[in-house]
């Protein structure tokens, strides 16, 4: 744990040089999406009635889903290139592996940093959501840990995978065939009940759907204990599996 915190400090030192750019995108993206889709497109949707959305405005429906999806994207950004670059380009991971730190310490240190980044971005998102008037119950605050957990369910397996990659072109494929379809079809923009029945079970398997459903139910104040436990349990299980895999792939890559 203490060793992992040393690695967390490294990432924080590193982040001091890039935080301005990252804050910019973590503010701008939610504003653009909530403005264009929530308000703009939302006015069309609302005009047709929102019974299928649970009777709330499109903006209110969209915002928590988008928050979960944004957490997925933050997680993807943190767990691909920065990790791959450390082992392949800068080789700072190899430098750290020569010290008392173990591969798992490096992994866990970076996960702590990812958790902080997820919490920061989700907090910013929450504030913007409130500014748009899309936060309706105090329960919306619980979206923050829910979004962080959603992010970690992506960060841990992706980071485990990134440590096995020989080329960074693998990530382009991951974004194209993983992140973008999930972003579009996991219930973020429309309820997955609108999907053809044959592909619906597929959506239930994705961590993003659980994250979106969890955040939305908390934000709208419709959360039920059983479903909430299912979503949280699923996301925790994926996170745990990712940590287990990452412990292995970090060790394999750094201790050849």
């Amino acid at each position, binding site marked *: 744990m*203490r060793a992992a915190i*040393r*690695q967390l*400090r*490294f990432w924080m*030192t*590193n982040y001091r*040089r890039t935080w301005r750019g990252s804050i910019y995108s973590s503010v701008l993206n939610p504003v653009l999406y909530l403005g264009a889709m929530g308000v703009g497109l939302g006015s069309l949707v609302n005009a047709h009635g929102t019974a299928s959305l649970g009777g709330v405005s499109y903006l209110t429906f969209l915002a928590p889903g988008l928050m979960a999806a944004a957490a997925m994207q933050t997680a993807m950004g943190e767990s691909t290139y920065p990790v791959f670059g450390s082992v392949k380009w*800068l*080789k*700072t991971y*190899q*430098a*750290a*592996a*020569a*010290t*008392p*730190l*173990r591969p798992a310490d490096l992994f866990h240190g970076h996960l702590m940093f990812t958790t902080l980044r997820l919490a920061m971005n989700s907090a910013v998102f929450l504030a913007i959501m409130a500014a748009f008037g899309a936060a309706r119950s105090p329960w919306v605050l619980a979206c923050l840990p829910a979004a962080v957990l959603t992010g970690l369910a992506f960060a841990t397996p992706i980071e485990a995978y990134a440590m096995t990659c020989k080329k960074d072109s693998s990530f382009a494929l991951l974004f194209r065939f993983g992140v973008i379809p999930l972003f579009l079809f996991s219930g973020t923009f429309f309820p997955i009940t609108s999907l053809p029945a044959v592909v619906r079970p597929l959506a239930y398997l994705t961590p993003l759907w659980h994250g979106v459903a969890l955040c939305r139910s908390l934000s709208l104040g419709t959360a039920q204990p059983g479903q909430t436990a299912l979503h949280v349990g699923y996301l925790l299980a994926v996170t745990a599996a990712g940590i287990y895999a990452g412990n292995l792939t970090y060790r394999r890559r*750094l*201790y*050849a």
Partner: protein
Amino acid sequence: MSEAPGNVTVVAAPDILIRAKGLTKTFGDFTAVAGIDFELTRGEVFGFLGPNGAGKSSTMRMIGCVSPPSGGELSIFGLDPVRDGQAIRARLGVVPQEDTLDVELTVRENLLIYGRYFGLRRDVIRERTARLLEFVQLTERADDEVEPLSGGMKRRLTIARSLISDPEVLLLDEPTTGLDPQARHVVWDRLYRLKQQGVTLVLTTHYMDEAEQLCDRLVVMDGGKIAAEGSPRELIDRYSTAEVLELRFGLDEHEKMAGKLEGVPAERIEVLADRILLYTADGDAALGAVRARGLEPVTSLVRRSTLEDVFLRLTGRRLED
């Protein structure tokens, strides 16, 4: 001599820091290190001399506890590198073959981060950073980013970084490979000072002059095996002659000329692509004998034997190709 409990007098064993027996490293069905034995004593400068692919880095990584041995025994500070890797690495300084500096951070930040990895306090790191940057002549660049530094400066910074934890043993994998001659001499000078201070150094190199200047003792490595072991002087005495006469004849004439050197006082003759080497106790006498046969080389040179000659003798190949 010291008194052990129970009044049994024991002779203090020499301070062996690293001991390897039959040490092996395989990658799939490829054997990179094929069962080597060596011992490292406290205070000495020990070298692995060998060409590219000899298995030097693989050996260093096993000593550095970032590569589990595939076979044989290895003990470092009396500890097991797989089980006690963390404790061993805390006592080692490592200069890897490839630069692993964080080029996006400053010189000072690199030392701070690295020092923190060893759990050192900030004030300790600050004090050592000042001293080490002075030592590697980088004080003026302390707050500059690492990226634009020259290769030699990066190498010196890596050496400073490896010393931040005040290690008992410093591992240097090809410390001057890729540097221009001037930058190499600066690095050698710093390593020589460390040696004077009594730091135990393990280094690998494929430069025979580097091995000859720095190492108290070395092993010649080739194809994953150790071909010979000793001090540079011992190795030269054992595997070469006092002097070497180098003869250059016209292009493609070397094989033919070698045939005419029968009877010239030389222990051994090596015919290379561009010259003939005669191993002899007295180079000038041998040159006289060559001339007495009416042979006139384009150039001739009498020199002392080097580790390059030892390597050629042991492996039939040259070190730096």
